[in-house]
């Protein structure tokens, strides 16, 4: 394997440029003749656009042009699409209203663009924007799902009566009803999964350039999947043709899902670059990020679990309302359905499940995938329900989980997913040991003596990564295949370039992908360069999201490597006059086993390219490509235990200990894995304690800056104790499962379960801010 191969804690290659300020982000792109775009956005949550007067603005200093929504319509630019068709229970297709990149006649959320000013400088564009007069006629708005579903509620889209996008279901209603009718105990719970703002460190940005002679566009954009961006921009929006559009996603400062989607701004920048015949740059500011980056989560659910007399689960019934905001974003429809309800079986044997999900339009920012995408909502529901059940049934929460764990694999759940492998008991045991579960009562008593309330909460989460077998997702309505591609190029001097369709925006691919290659050949990671994020360089690829880059992206590299190695072995055997079957690769050399005959990789590569002495009939060169389509999802799972202490005077929750035991299959680089888990945990804890996007009744955002929207800071999170148990994933050649989202998926329920344990009741919602916890404590005292 070599010291830098799989399993080694190799320092991240990319960090040198990041920590020395040499990263190259979209906003760093400078082109001669660059102009700057500033969008004019609606201050209203719902209004008719009666007219736009840009005449004064057009005469302002530096103004190149002011483009309005109507011009988009006139140029027949397409509306934004939603790429996953989900049907209602009655078979009817989802009911979608049109989402134009700028709104010609109706705005439906605060921040929706109606026009754009293009000027020589950003400041001039902003100055001119103030001179553009937009006449609005305000309409009544609905900012909550309850308001949107009320009878007589204002309607957002004529296509979606009652503001309902779909009313979907999964599982067997009748079987589940029967199971409940036989139950010895039924436990029910209402819960809210709070809306989150992704808040990647780098705001979204786009630089579009049009080459008139070549009729060719180049778009630099903050994307997690530049090829998908090119596909969508060319196939649906009538802006540019696919072969005449190059999309480059250079260094990208975090995405968390929010940079999967194709947004209005990059479409408009492309279109505008041709209209004004100048390159156009748009870089969002933090306020625009709050208003227009797709938000995450936002569910309201009612859940019921049926148990028999032995506390075995008989069935699960769930009704969820999912807030989509004002428009259906690119993958929004799949998040509360196929990425959520398919995980409702958790780590448990549940004979039957029936879940209904109603998707709802409101006058708020569109909602789509955000770190975990559906799976955090599922684990929050299942794990809160398990903890509540344990308390209600008076069983130890670890025990209740253990007696219901799936232990035989493969395991077909009643909600599509077929778990391939796992050892849930092993993770739970390790977590119990790490937290010293037996010592908890003593710690609680000690805290009580000091005037503090201590609580402990579990979360045994499972999630699905490695999305996904193309045929399977296709049958569920996905508009794309979800394979990945790779090309491995061995250069004539033996250094290697790997072109991957995955995209790194914080994950460390430049290191981990290189480790795979370096390990197989026994060379240094410095000999390997990972190339990604440019449609002109890289063959088609699907990008990075859903913790898929190791399981799918690296598996494609693995396949390409096998092909490269097979050809290289043939060449080596030819040069060494040995038989191909006797060649082994070690320490960068091709050796004849059992002899001291060897030839170094650079010599083999050189031979491939000089082609002076190749086996008869062999093509020159040493470069192979592969596409890898996964056979199944992968199923990372783990056990998290959180211990909190509440200050009853202030309601402040301190996480005094947090243990995470994850099973991610094989670890490529344990240091990077730990980093991913730390970040995920911080985001999950952020959701549990701090974050929450709030709108007032008129649809005005209350939390549109960091002064009101609380992001977790270093001192809000504990020093995590992270460890691993391992079952190798049988579904891909590397045995990997994925680690990017687990922390965010598993941690929120552990935190809330610990808080409800400390409180002694369940009446608290996320975020459990000090104010809310204090109010919950007063409820308690009032009851006593």
């Amino acid at each position: 394997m070599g010291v830098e191969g799989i399993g080694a804690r190799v320092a991240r290659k990319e960090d040198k440029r990041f920590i020395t300020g040499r990263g190259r982000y979209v906003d760093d792109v400078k082109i001669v003749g660059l102009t700057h775009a500033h969008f004019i956005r609606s201050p209203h949550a719902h209004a008719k656009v009666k007219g736009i007067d840009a005449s004064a603005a057009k005469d302002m200093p530096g103004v190149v042009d002011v483009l309005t929504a109507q011009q988009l319509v006139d140029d027949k630019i397409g509306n934004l699409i939603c790429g996953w068709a989900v049907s209602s229970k009655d078979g009817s297709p989802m009911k979608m209203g049109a989402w134009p990149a700028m709104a010609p006649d109706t705005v439906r959320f605060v921040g929706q663009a109606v026009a754009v000013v293009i000027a020589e400088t950003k400041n001039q564009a902003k100055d001119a924007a103030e001179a553009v007069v937009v006449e609005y006629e305000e309409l009544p708005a609905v900012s909550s799902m309850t308001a949107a579903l009320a009878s007589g509620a204002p309607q957002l889209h004529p296509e979606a009566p009652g503001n309902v996008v779909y009313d979907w279901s999964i599982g067997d209603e009748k079987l589940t009803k029967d199971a409940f009718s036989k139950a010895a105990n039924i436990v029910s719970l209402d819960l809210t999964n709070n809306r989150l703002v992704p808040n990647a460190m780098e705001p979204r940005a786009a630089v579009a350039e049009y080459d008139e002679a070549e009729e060719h566009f180049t778009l630099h954009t903050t994307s997690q999947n530049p090829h998908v961006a090119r596909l969508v921009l060319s196939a649906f929006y009538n802006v540019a043709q696919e072969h005449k559009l190059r999309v480059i996603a250079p260094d990208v400062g975090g995405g968390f899902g929010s940079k999967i989607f194709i947004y209005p701004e990059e479409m408009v920048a492309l279109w505008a670059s041709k209209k004004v015949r100048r390159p156009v740059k748009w870089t969002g500011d933090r306020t625009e990020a709050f208003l227009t980056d797709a938000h995450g989560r936002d569910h309201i659910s009612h859940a019921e679990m049926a148990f028999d007399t032995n506390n075995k689960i008989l069935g699960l019934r769930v009704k969820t309302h999912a807030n989509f905001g004002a428009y259906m974003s690119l993958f929004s429809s799949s998040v509360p359905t196929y990425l959520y309800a398919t995980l409702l079986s958790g780590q448990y044997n549940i004979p039957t499940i029936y879940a209904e999900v109603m998707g709802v339009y409101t006058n708020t920012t569109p909602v789509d995938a955000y770190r975990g995408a559906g799976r955090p909502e599922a684990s929050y529901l299942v794990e809160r329900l398990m903890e509540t059940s344990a308390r209600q049934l008076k069983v130890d929460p670890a025990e209740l989980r253990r007696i219901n764990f799936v232990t035989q694999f493969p395991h077909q759940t009643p909600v599509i997913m077929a778990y391939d492998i796992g050892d849930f008991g092993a993770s739970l045991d390790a977590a119990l040991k790490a937290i010293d579960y037996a010592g908890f009562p003593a710690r609680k008593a000690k805290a009580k003596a000091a005037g503090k309330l201590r609580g402990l909460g579990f979360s045994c989460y499972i999630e699905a990564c490695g999305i996904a077998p193309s045929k399977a997702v296709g049958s569920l309505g996905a508009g794309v295949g979800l394979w990945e591609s790779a090309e491995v190029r061995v250069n004539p001097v033996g250094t290697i370039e790997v072109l991957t369709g995955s995209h790194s925006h914080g994950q460390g691919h430049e290191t981990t992908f290189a480790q795979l290659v370096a390990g197989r050949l026994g060379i240094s990671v410095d000999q390997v360069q990972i190339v990604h994020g440019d449609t002109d360089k890289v063959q088609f690829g699907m990008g990075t999201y859903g913790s898929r880059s190791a399981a799918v992206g690296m598996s494609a590299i693995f396949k390409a490597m096998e092909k490269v190695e097979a050809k290289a072995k043939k060449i080596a055997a030819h040069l060494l006059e040995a038989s191909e079957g006797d060649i082994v690769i070690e320490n960068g050399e091709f050796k004849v086993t059992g002899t001291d005959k060897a030839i170094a990789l650079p010599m083999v590569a050189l031979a491939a390219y000089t082609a002076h002495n190749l086996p008869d009939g062999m093509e020159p060169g040493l470069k192979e490509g592969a596409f890898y389509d996964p056979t199944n999802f992968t199923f990372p799972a783990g056990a998290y235990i959180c211990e909190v202490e509440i200050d009853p005077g202030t309601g402040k929750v301190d996480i005094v200990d947090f243990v995470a035991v994850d099973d991610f299959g094989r670890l490529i680089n344990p240091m990077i894995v730990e980093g991913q888990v730390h970040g995920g945990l911080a985001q999950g804890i952020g959701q549990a304690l701090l974050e929450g996007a709030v709108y007032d009744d008129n649809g005005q955002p209350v939390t549109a800056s960091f002064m009101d929207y609380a992001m977790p800071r270093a001192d809000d999170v504990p020093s995590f104790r992270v460890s691993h148990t391992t079952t190798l994933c049988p579904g891909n050649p590397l045995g990997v499962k994925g680690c990017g989202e687990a922390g965010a998926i598993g941690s929120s329920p552990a935190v809330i379960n610990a808080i409800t344990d400390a409180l002694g009741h369940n009446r608290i919602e996320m975020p459990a801010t000090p104010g809310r916890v204090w109010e919950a404590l007063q409820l308690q005292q009032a009851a006593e």
Partner: protein
Amino acid sequence: MYETTYHRPASIDEAAALFAKHPEAKYLAGGHTLIPVMKQRLAAPSDVIDLAKIKEMIGIEATSDALIIKAATTYYDITQSAAAKKAIPAIVYLTSVLGDPAVRYRGTIGGSIANNDPAADYPAAVLALGATIKTNTREIKGDDFFQGLFSTALEDNEIITSVSFPIPAKAGYAKMRHPASRFALTGVFVAQTKSGEVRVAATGASQNGVMRVPAIEAALKANWSAGALDGVKISADGLMSDIHGSAEYRANLIKVMAQRAVEAAG
């Protein structure tokens, strides 16, 4: 940001003269409030007159009766000042929990007081300690200085030059941080003057900005101890209520923070 002209005067008089010439100007100190507001285009001063580099506005002195902090002294310098630590440790503590390191390196006591954010920390100390605010034209008593949200007794062209805090017998500060901004969700400064008077001020709680808390003052006057506040009821009337805390919660925090401040004061 709108275009503006930046000036860096060397003296207080020069700064005042510049303001006289440019009535649409703004003074700039640490810039941690003014610059973000300008960037958001919510303020558009024609000229910006930087006070932060004026030598006669920087420094800390303690006499036997008072701790005098010049207006352009940064929070960081206050936290590092041996004189301040000795004279009124509660002020140093308050400064150490104000904002984050970046804010403390640039933000100034004069800027904080001039700005009078209803959730700022310094106004509580000024009011509770009965400080005096010195400007380039006069002296203003702390009791008269704060006039509701973001509003003070200062004239537009007036420059705070220093703040003089009488050294108390005992003083303490306790702050519940706002989860997002880390300003005071509620902060309470308690002080017992050398003559035995008890003064208590709360910030972050009231709809009208920093305020004295007579109920707590009376209880502490009778018995300077945290326990003395157990039975005190704070009314929620007139307190702020928002997504981070109801008025009732803030009323509770006034009491709890007062108790902790008393414990800290000893």
